[in-house]
């Protein structure tokens, strides 16, 4: 829980004043470069990567697992949504990365005559926070249907850096 404190602080700061926008081009989708097995867009936003032979990056695979442990009991299988919670495969595309992180960390409530909808704050849940980018890139891959429903197939190996970061984050 110590490690992601920095990320959170940054995210909270940057989310101020950022509007949610629809993704018309692929600049928020396409991987521009990779670092220790993680992939990023031109604007340094985490994203998925699928090799020509269909192999997916580790984070996207990991996100599939973590999503179905932490998120799917409300948001449905494979980010498809449920009878009472939105389809996150769309949210990951429609929402700015920092807004997405903000909602996961701090939660959100929609309580009114028609809705009793509450997203909890996961900010102190290491099972979510240590895998937030994993879940995000998996949902993004789902959102553009780069990864089909069901269990992903071939995947990249987990890099040493990812493993070290995971251990440090989980404590």
């Amino acid at each position, binding site marked *: 829980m110590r490690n992601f404190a920095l990320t959170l602080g940054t995210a909270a700061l940057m989310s101020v004043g950022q509007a949610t926008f629809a993704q018309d081009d692929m600049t928020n989708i396409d991987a521009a470069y990779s670092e220790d097995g993680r992939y990023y867009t031109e604007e340094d936003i985490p994203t998925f990567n699928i090799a020509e032979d269909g192999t997916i990056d580790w984070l996207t695979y990991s996100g*599939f*697992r*973590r999503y*179905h*442990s*932490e998120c*799917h*009991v*409300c948001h*449905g*299988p*494979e980010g*498809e*949504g*449920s*009878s*009472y919670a939105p*389809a996150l495969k769309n949210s990951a595309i429609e929402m700015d990365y920092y807004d997405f992180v903000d909602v996961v960390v701090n*939660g959100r*409530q929609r*309580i009114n005559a*028609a*809705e*009793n*909808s*509450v*997203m*909890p704050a*996961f900010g*102190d*849940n*290491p*099972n*979510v926070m240590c895998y937030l980018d994993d879940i995000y890139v998996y949902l993004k891959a789902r959102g553009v249907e780069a990864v*089909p*429903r*069901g*269990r992903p197939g071939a995947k990249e190996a987990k890099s040493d850096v990812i493993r070290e970061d995971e251990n440090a984050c*989980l*404590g």
Partner: protein
Amino acid sequence: MRKTKYLAAALLLSSTVSASANDELMSMMDDPNQWVIQTGDYANQRYSELDQINKDNVSDLQVAWTFSTGVLRGHEGSPLVIGDVMYVHTPFPNIVYALDLTDEGKIIWKYEPKQDPDVIPVMCCDTVNRGVAYADGKIFLHQADTTVVALNADTGAVEWSVMNGDAAVGETNTATVLPVGDKVIVGISGGEFGVRGSVTAYNIADGTQAWRAYSMGPDSDILVDPETTTHLGEPVGVDSGINTWEGDQWKIGGGTTWGWYSYDPDENLVYYGTGNPSTWNPAQRPGDNRWSMTIMARDADTGMAKWFYQMTPHDEWDYDGINEMILTDQEIDGVERKLLTHFDRNGLGYTLDRITGELLVAEKFDPAVNWTTGVDMDPNSDTYGRPAVVAEYSTEQNGEDVNSTGICPAALGSKDQQPAAYSPETELFYVPTNHVCMDYEPFRVSYTAGQPYVGATLAMYPAPDSHGGMGNFIAWDNKAGEIVWSVPEQFSVWSGALATAGDVVFYGTLEGYLKAVDAATGEELYKFKTPSGIIGNVMTYTQGGKQYVAILSGIGGWAGIGLAAGLTNPNDGLGAVGGYAALSDYTALGGQMTVFALPD
């Protein structure tokens, strides 16, 4: 009307809670014109003596009147009818309406509690509530935030309220309560948040706590006598709630108690089941994890356990044992037996002697069940009463970070809480079932109070090599341990059944149909599509001498999670993805009661 008289009598008694209050409640349960607790009666049979609507005329059924609850999430449970008043509850925010049946359903009073919305996301699987119960002039509501409140049945005024748990650590409630004698028995939810399950009895008169029995922990917490409390006929011994756990894991051990409760007045025993051990990753909790996954028989006055039976030691699949215990008196081999029949999430239908806890029958009630080859029924065996686990489907033996595939049933069980019905005329049980299998990959998780504590990834899909649907509605013989007939359904049957003396069995479907079938054959006699999917339970009552059947619609709950988007079998390859029907193609959110009757 004599129903009114009952109500008046009960109200008179309200200041002097005693055994006679319970006698009053039991005579009201025996009166088929009313429906006074969620399960219909203490035996949880969900059987009505009413026969105006019968198999010959049920095809003429019509909608008599409807009522919108104003809430759009999953609607479980059913309305109650006490005298001329109907009580209708809703999911969070847990509104209760009292409707005047003599005045076209006019609202007499409405109770809407103020609850912290933070409880909503702590509830696994939607904000359902399985309804209110009546006793001693009061309507008992157990809210999502675990507030147990006693409302004056006439006015809706709060007579007392008590907080049973702490939502901040993931303790919530979805279940109804069971009034027994001068107490009301309540459970708790939160197995996916590392909650240690318990059952608590509160005094009906003032809400003070009478006893609390945890599912695991020291003997003083779980209310056992090491010498006289038995498991399959043997004393449980000292520290039975600790010595099958490693370290302090029992403190966040699950075994929550969110199902149904039944009661045998002659034995003064309350029966219920406990839920999954926490976490879903079996490698993190070596041992049998007693007394999770256990049928419990407890003295209603003291909470002291008479017997336990652990159905699924060291759960590896999330097969909560909380489903209803149906009490029947039947003849086996020429001997009249007091039986308890239970359809477990693990896919086995159990028949036990409810006085001694002796195991009589344990057979699969869905042929798809594959995680076990069956239960060892030899009392002289070392593994007596234990299910034999098939290695291929053992998420423990396959290990952490390994995806075990093709396990049947899925985590939601061959049957979840949706209660079955029993007809003493046919001696058959009518069981709503799920026909769904899964892949299950456990992995390590860390515990944070109030945060999900799951530790497994699941994929669920219709049972392979079957009819392609995700449910069946079956008739079950609890003595032979056999399916008598089975009606395939496109979706899991997530509605509680009702059997009647009219030789008709009613249930609802996730598409929203209320269906009536022939109790002897399962032949469909009537169906009507209500405004939203049905996860509520069918009930019946009379008003002005006329029989009515009522059901809540409102898709949601566990069923609303996976089925809204449709389920896929990841093992079928890309070609089949999306090939299974999505519930969202058939129904949408709703919150409505539909009441049926024959034309005048």
